[in-house]
Structure formats: C-alpha cells, structure tokens
C-alpha cells in the first residue's frame, strides 16, 4: 500500500495562492461573507500562512502553504467519540460528514489547526453553485471538514488503472493544489517507494516537518534552506 505524501518547497513558493483557489474549486468549499471571514470563519483546506520575520526595515516575508498534515499518528482521530474521523486504509485521515456530531473535539485536538467547522449551512453564489464538483460531496451545517488529499482523485485514478489493467503509476493521482502550482513547488507521491520524487526530496537536507517533535508523523514535508522559524516573539 503506498504512503501518500506531499512535499512543498518553500524556497520555490511565491505565495501566489493558486493552490488555495484550486482546492476551493475542486472540493466545493463554501463561501463566507467578509464579516464572517473577519471572525475567523473562512474555510480553506489549503491555506497560505504568511510569516513576517525580523523588524522594520529588515523584514522578510515567507509563506507556508498548509494543507492537512495527514499524520500517521493523528491526534484528531483518537478523540472523535463517533468514529467520524479516522485514518483510512490508504493512510489518509478521512472525515465521515453524515456521522459527525459537530462536537469539535478533533478541531481542538489538532495541533496544526487544519480542521474547519461549518458554522452555517454552506453557501455559493449562483454561478458557482452551477459548477460544483460532482465528485465531492458538499457538507451540511454543523460538521467538521478538512483537506482529504483529494481522496476522490485517488479513487478515480485507481478505477482508471484497473480498467487499463495496470498498477497505479506516479502521476496518476495528484491533488488539485499540487497540480495547479505554477512555481513547481509542490510534489506528490508514494513515500514508501524509494525511487519516487517525494521520497527522494524527503531525504534532502532541506527537508523538515511541522512540529515534528510532537510525534504526529505528518506526511506533508517541507523543504527550506536554513532556519525557517525566524525569531519568535511572545504573544
């Protein structure tokens, strides 16, 4: 069984937000009003977090695209009281929307804060509603959702490979964000295949994972030259 993983090269990322938009279109992410967005209720499975390092005039801005880390040891699935979030047989952290009771324990337990809640029933402008992706279910109000590594694409790729009577090949299955990255900063593939691009990049000296010391074993690997955290100030 492949271990699907994503590699994001921060040295190449321009912060253009193409991955964010691609994700929203692909996964039928609902719109929120500017007022709601100001309250922190934007749903954005893929989010670009800007980091400002240093102080004026020596300022450097960096960006971290942040999808779900798809941890091998996820803190969120343990706490779910109804098995609405779990690590599936592909190693991806999945959500069962019709079962979720909306207690938001998983959202509170996730150290990466990648889980989102549907505060209201989802809404789209009429034009957008007409072109929702039929492969992805929309979510009702009151449930938790998050990045799935475009799991529906994996299902399609597997069906296609089966129809063509062959094994899955590298490149058959790629999430929308990776596909859309114009800077070529994102890679996707099987971490357990030592010849795959992601496995080779993951071995690079530039590779690191977010909050690695928590033991969550994230499957999103970042590449960056040197120290990227920068000086941290207290709240």
């Amino acid at each position, binding site marked *: 069984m492949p271990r699907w993983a994503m590699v994001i090269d921060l040295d190449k990322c321009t912060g253009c937000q193409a991955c964010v938009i691609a994700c929203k279109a692909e996964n039928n992410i609902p719109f929120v009003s500017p007022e*709601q967005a100001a*309250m*922190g*209720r*934007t749903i954005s499975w893929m989010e670009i*977090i*800007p*980091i400002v390092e240093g102080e004026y005039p020596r300022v450097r801005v960096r960006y*971290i695209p*942040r999808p779900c880390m798809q941890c091998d040891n996820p*803190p969120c699935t*343990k*706490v*779910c*009281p*109804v*098995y*609405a979030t779990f690590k599936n047989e592909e190693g991806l952290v999945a959500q069962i929307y019709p*079962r*979720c*009771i*909306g*207690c*938001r*324990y998983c*959202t*509170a*337990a996730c*150290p*990466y*804060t990648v889980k*989102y*809640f*549907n*505060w*209201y*029933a989802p809404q789209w402008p009429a034009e957008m509603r007409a072109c929702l992706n039929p492969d992805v279910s929309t979510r*009702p*109000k*009151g*449930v*938790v959702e998050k990045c799935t590594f475009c799991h529906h694409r994996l299902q399609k790729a597997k069906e296609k490979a089966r129809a063509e009577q062959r094994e899955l090949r590298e490149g058959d299955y790629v999430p929308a964000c990776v596909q859309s990255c114009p800077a070529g900063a994102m890679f996707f593939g099987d971490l357990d295949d030592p010849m795959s691009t992601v496995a080779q990049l993951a071995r690079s000296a530039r590779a690191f994972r*977010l*909050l690695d010391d*928590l033991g969550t074993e994230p499957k999103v690997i970042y590449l960056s030259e040197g120290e990227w955290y920068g000086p*941290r100030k*207290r*709240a």
Partner: protein
Amino acid sequence: MDREREHNEADAKLFAPMLETGRPFYLTVGVLSALVLWGIYAWLTQYRWGLGVTGLNRPVYWGFYITNFVFFIGISHAGTLVSAILRLCQAEWRRSITRSAEVITVLVLFFGVANILADLGRPDRVLNIIKHGQFHSPLLWDVTSVATYLTASSIYLYLPLIPDLALLRDKLQMLQNEGRLTSLFMRFRRRVYTWLALGWTGTERQQRRLNRAISVMAVLVIPIAVSVHTVVSWVFAMTIQPMWHSTIFGPYFVAGAIFSGIAALILAMAVIRRVYHLEEYLKPVHFNHLGVLLLVMTLLWLYFTFAEHLTSYYGAEPAHMRVFWTKVTGRYAPAFWTMVVCCFIIPFSLLSRRRTRTITGTVIASVAVIIGMWLERFTIVVPTLVNPRLPYERGLYSPTWVEVAITVGCFAMFILLYVIFTKLFPIISIWEVREGRERALQETAERIKTYLPGEEEVEEVGVGVLS
C-alpha cells in the same frame, strides 16, 4: 403517638413550604421562567441557523458552552460528595444539610449535559454516541461516568427521602381525613407520595435495611464523583495542546469541583434558611463548619493553581508561554486576576478569621468562589485555543447574546427546578433531624466512650451508617 405529635409540632416549619404557597413563590417562578424562555429562544435560534450565531470561530472552537459544562459538573460535587463524606464520618451536624446538597448534584448534572448538547453542531445526531461510540475518545468516558454519576446520585437522593415521603403521605392523609385536603393537586400529590414511599412504616427492619443501603451508596458514590471530574479534566489533558496537556488536571479539577460545590451549597442553604425561616435548623454553626471546609479547599485551590502555573512558567516552552502570558498579562489577564481575587483573596480573608466566618461572611465568600471558579474554567478553556501550537495562528473570542442567553437560561432553570423541589419535597431531611434529636446524643456519647482509654473493650456501639 404523643411523641409523633410533639415532633410534628416541632418540625411544623419543615412541612410549611410544601403546604403553603405565597406570592413571592409565584413571583420567583415568573422571573425565572422568563429567563428560561429567553434561553430556549436563543437555543432555537442556534438550532435554526447553526453555531454561526455564537462567537466561536477557528481556532477558538470552544467557549462558553464547554466552560459551563465543566462548571456545572463541578458544582454537582457539592452534594453527593460532601453529603457522603459527612455521613461516613458520622458528622452529626450533617443532618439538616445533606438533602439540600444532594438535590444540587442531581439537578445541576442535567445542565452540564445540556451545555454539551448546546455545543454540538449536530444535536440531532447525538445518539451516534451510542450507535458508533468510540471508547478511545475521552468524550465517551465522560458520557459513561456522568451517566453513572447521575444514576448513583439520584438513588442516593431518593433513599434518604423515603422516610420523609412516608411522613408526607401520613401528613396529607391526616389532612384528608380531617377534610382539609380539598384541592385536586394535593390529592394527586398524596397519591404520588404514597407510591414513592414504597410502604415505609419505619419498622426496625426497614430502618436497618435503609441504613445499610444508604451507607453502601455513600461509599459507592465517592469514587464515582471523583471519577466524573477527573474524566472531565481528561477531555483537555488527553490532547497535546499547550497548558491542557497536564498530569495534575485530574486532581486539580476534582479539587476545584468540590470547592465550587461547597460554595453553591452554602449559598443554597443561606437562601433556604432566609426564605423558609429555618434559622433553627441551619444554624451559624453549620455555616461555620462549611466555611472551614471551604477554607481548606481555597488553600488547596491555590496550591494546585500555583503548581500548575509555576511548572509551565519554569519550563518556559514557547507554546506554553504564549498561553501563559495571554492569561497573566494579556487579553485574559482581567479574567485571570479576577479569578485569583475571587477564588483566593476574598474567601481566604473572610474564612480564615472566626469573626468573619459568619453566615454573611461565608455567603460573600461563596458568591466570590462561584464567580471565580466559572472564570477558572473559562481561563482554562479559551486561552489555549486562542494560542494554538503553530505560532502563526491567532484567535479572538467574544461571546454573542445567544451564548449569554443560554448560560443565563441554564442558571435560571437550575434555580427554578431547585425552588420547585423545595415546594414538593422536604429540603431538610425531617427523619434524620428527628433521629438526631432522639438517639444521636446518646449514641455519640457512647461512641466517644469507646475512643477513651480505660473502658472495657465492648462490642461496637452506635457506629451509625457504617454498621
């Protein structure tokens, strides 16, 4: 029969609230009902539109409701735990206060559960907890232990109520025989009391069995109560979030729960004493004793709070420090320092001196403790969520009217149910007071004799509930 009449005359005041109802009662019920309706309206609004009508957001996913949940479950430790410990220790002064404590437990638990329901995004799917329950989730542990606790403390409330229900049955029967029981509601109540009294006649054998049952429940209920708040704390402590992931959370929460519970009990007793003129039953000595207990808990609370915060501060892990400073000097500093004043400075200064450990003194301290303990729960839940581990995410939280209304509605409905209970059942255990009057004096004297040197080692005498 003569003795019976003597008792009835002496305890007339204990029956009065259940037989006579005045204007103030209806006024209280009216005001409380209005507040409850406001809360229900808020909840319907939330049900209709979703949790968007609250002030919750990402990353502050939990706020008032979870705070209330922890707080109410904490208050519930008043009753059963305090009453069980006093019973087992054969503290004679317990007789007139156990009932009012036990009622708090049973009633307030419902509001702990209600706040979890209010917090759910999909309350319509709550039964999934049974259908698809996952025991690796601390929330399931909560469901289990709270359900056990509710069952056990209901039984523990009911058992000592049986002889009193029989007294009420007889009283109403007497009134009916005299032709003074005219209202239909009273007749209905007489039948309910008869049914609930399970044919109690007070024979030696019944009394022995009841005492045994009560002592078994008193022993059982203590570990259950401890487990409940421990498990509530584990909802937080089992995550790896900064300043939640703490090993002392179990005992810290249990101590805080008993602390706020005793405060709630003192407040309830003071109100009952005032409204129903029970000065003879709830005396300054009761408030003094409970005041000492509250003082002990104040010190214990300070110890735990200090230990918890010093450990975080000294370790100085960045993620923990962000939460720490948000509490101590940042956005939640007003709540944090009000908590310190309410949970320590006010109660300690009032309760540590005999001169101020009066009824008024203990009541002021209790009000402070209740406010302080709510703030404690709030400053545990929110500052951690405001400062998640990834340093680039920040949150803000201010509740909306919906959360305020549901909170106020819960408090109002709890008080309302409590008031109604006092109108239907004796809020002071009549038979236990009588037993105290009749037998305890001699029994206690004999018991004390057995403690003293020189006395022949005789068979165990009057070991009360333990025998």
